[in-house]
């Protein structure tokens, strides 16, 4: 909690400091396709079929000189049969909402530039269908697959290319760090997890 508070204060302070020095611009991030490499826990414990899943996102950011604040949402999904025999797959959806502070070093090179970012967010894991019935040895077990949420932090690095002067394409790599309470035969363990996102973002200046 202290870490999140410090991060939020830093974000606000950064925006405030930059606003005194430069005009404001607003960009919409219309399309953010990416690949997510999930933490191995998802395959080893939760039985997800593969670690790499596709994600789509959108967002907006307010730029103040070399600084900007962005708000974005991402949606990804994976499938799992929980490693069970004879059980249909269910979909595990990842819903991320994140806010981040970006800084672009003043080093433009022929329409190319770079940007780094740090931020925080909220992740929700949701299964569809929200329950399963599985059978072992003739005994049916009904399991309700509830929703799980957790706070996340992330770091990102971007390579940007200007398009027509008012749009940019960003090649973005980010690492999301978070903890999840994971049940085990010996009790609930708080596990630190890390996902890797690699994707593109199209940003259009609207103001």
């Amino acid at each position, binding site marked *: 909690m202290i870490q999140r508070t410090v991060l939020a204060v830093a974000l606000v302070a950064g925006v405030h400091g930059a606003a005194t020095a430069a005009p404001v611009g607003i960009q919409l991030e219309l399309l953010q396709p990416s690949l997510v490499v999930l933490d*191995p826990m998802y*395959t*080893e*414990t*939760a*039985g997800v*079929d*593969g*670690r790499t899943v596709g994600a789509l996102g959108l967002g907006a950011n307010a730029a103040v000189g070399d600084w900007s604040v962005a708000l974005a949402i991402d949606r990804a999904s994976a499938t799992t*049969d*929980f*490693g*069970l*025999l*004879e*059980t*249909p*797959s269910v979909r595990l959806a990842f819903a991320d909402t994140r806010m981040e502070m970006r800084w672009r070093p003043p080093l433009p090179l022929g329409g190319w530039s770079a940007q780094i970012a740090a931020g925080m967010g909220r992740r929700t*894991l949701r*299964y569809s269908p929200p329950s*399963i019935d*599985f*059978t*072992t*040895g*003739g*005994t*049916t*077990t009904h*399991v*309700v*697959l*509830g929703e*799980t949420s957790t706070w996340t932090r992330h770091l990102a690095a971007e390579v940007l290319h200007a398009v027509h002067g008012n749009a940019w394409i960003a090649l973005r790599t980010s690492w999301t760090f978070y903890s*999840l*309470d*994971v*049940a*085990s*035969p010996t009790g*609930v363990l708080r596990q630190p997890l890390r996902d890797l996102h690699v994707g593109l973002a199209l940003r259009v200046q609207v103001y």
Partner: protein
Amino acid sequence: MRKPCVFWMLTLLWSSAAAESFMARSLAPEHGVDVFTRAEARRLMDRDLLAEPAGSALYGTVDVYDRFPWVESHWIAVTSDARWQRLLYGAPGDAPRAFGSADMPIAFGEPRGLAFAPDGRLFVTDRTEGRLVVLRLDRSGAEPRLVYVSHVDGLVQPMDVAVHDGGTPLVADDDRVLVVEAGEHRIGVFAAEGDRLVKLHEFGSRGPGNSEFLSPRTVAIGRADGACTDQVFVGDSGNHRLVRLAWRDGRLAWEAAMDLPMEATSVDADHHGNLLLTMRRRNDVWKVTPSFEVVAAMAGGARALAAPRDIAIPFAWVHDHRPGGAGPAWRGEGSVLVLEAWKDASGVRLVDLGVEIGSLRRSGNAELELQLTDPAHASAEITQSDGRIVRHDLGTLAAGTQSVTIPGLDGAARVTLAAVSLYDAARQASKTLVLEDTAPPQVVLHGNVPNPFNPMTTISFALPAAGRAALTVFDAKGRRVRELWSGTLPAGTHEFVWDGRDTRGRAMPSGVYFGRLQALEASIVRKMVMAR
């Protein structure tokens, strides 16, 4: 992570598609792998993987929670490789590991039989070294590993091993380990004292009689609802028979034997107690009840399998950790892996146990005789002649032939019997029988259906009145092959299934056969053609 090019994904790729009967199905349709063969191993992994797989075993754990990840399951598949002198094992998604002589203080000669105890110990017979090796599944690391525990020397050609849980899968102290010693024609019984195994007694000697074996090859423990019963089954290779033993005062005792057409290369009991026998030279798998009734042969007959040598029935610890959850239980699955000859066209095959209604006939005024291949929830729907429909829940019925009484089942009616697998409600079978009210004016022997057939056919006939009837199958030379029925029957239509075998259970060759009905002073013969 499940890599599509990893052998052990195959153990978990039981698809959701339900099979209709006892038959092989695609192992991993989403990856285009119907059968995992030597050619598939080369294509997917660029190596042969195995030289001569001899035995296989599957062990799993399933944990259920009230929070993420809600359900967690882990499986381990182990295969013994007699020629490359090692075990190959792994969890789905992991690269397979080898366990060989470098992983323990002794050397493997020819590892063959494998059996998991519910607590994760793995017992391995080593035929040429005359040894029983005890390993343990270590789950403390990121990936499960086999760890050497101990071994016992001095056995004579140990071929197969089975673990009796003492009827208490949750308790390891009362476990007994049974080893087939082919060279001494006997079964050795061991108990664990700490990490060591101690021989308690032996059963059997060389010979063809009771309490005797001739090169026994395989052993299995009877089961009921996952736990071991007091029955032990031995594949007596040289005598071509399946032997049933029982525990009497802590020792094995002879009970009965059933003749087989040839040696059984493996015998295993599923969760509900049905026995599965592989017959390598016959390319067949039989399903046999503990009382020695052959209830099914694998669909597809000789074309379905290639020299099957072992069966792995997945058993798992299921533990519901939720408040009020059921206690831990040791449970077996309704799909099994069949290990065939390791060649370019054969290898590891997935087989559904399924459920079928083998035969259905009226055996009395309000009584039906039916044969189930597996235990099932059964129900009957009776459509009366006036159109009224009455449904009866017959409860859970055991595998094998049995009679059920259905109140009000008299006169003309159409009876549809439905059986739902205890493993999976999606697996169902049904059969309809039309009961005639007015008896035919004379004895009628209908043609067999199908005709030609391979290898099973149904012969039906109708009687104008109750009386004695005999239905017998003869071959083209007039030799009596099999008597399908001899006894009293009520008036009406009756159905009998001939499975293409003679009285001793031997499969008959292709050719012309004759079904003869003798009833009420009539004698009628019909020609049948078997085309294998």
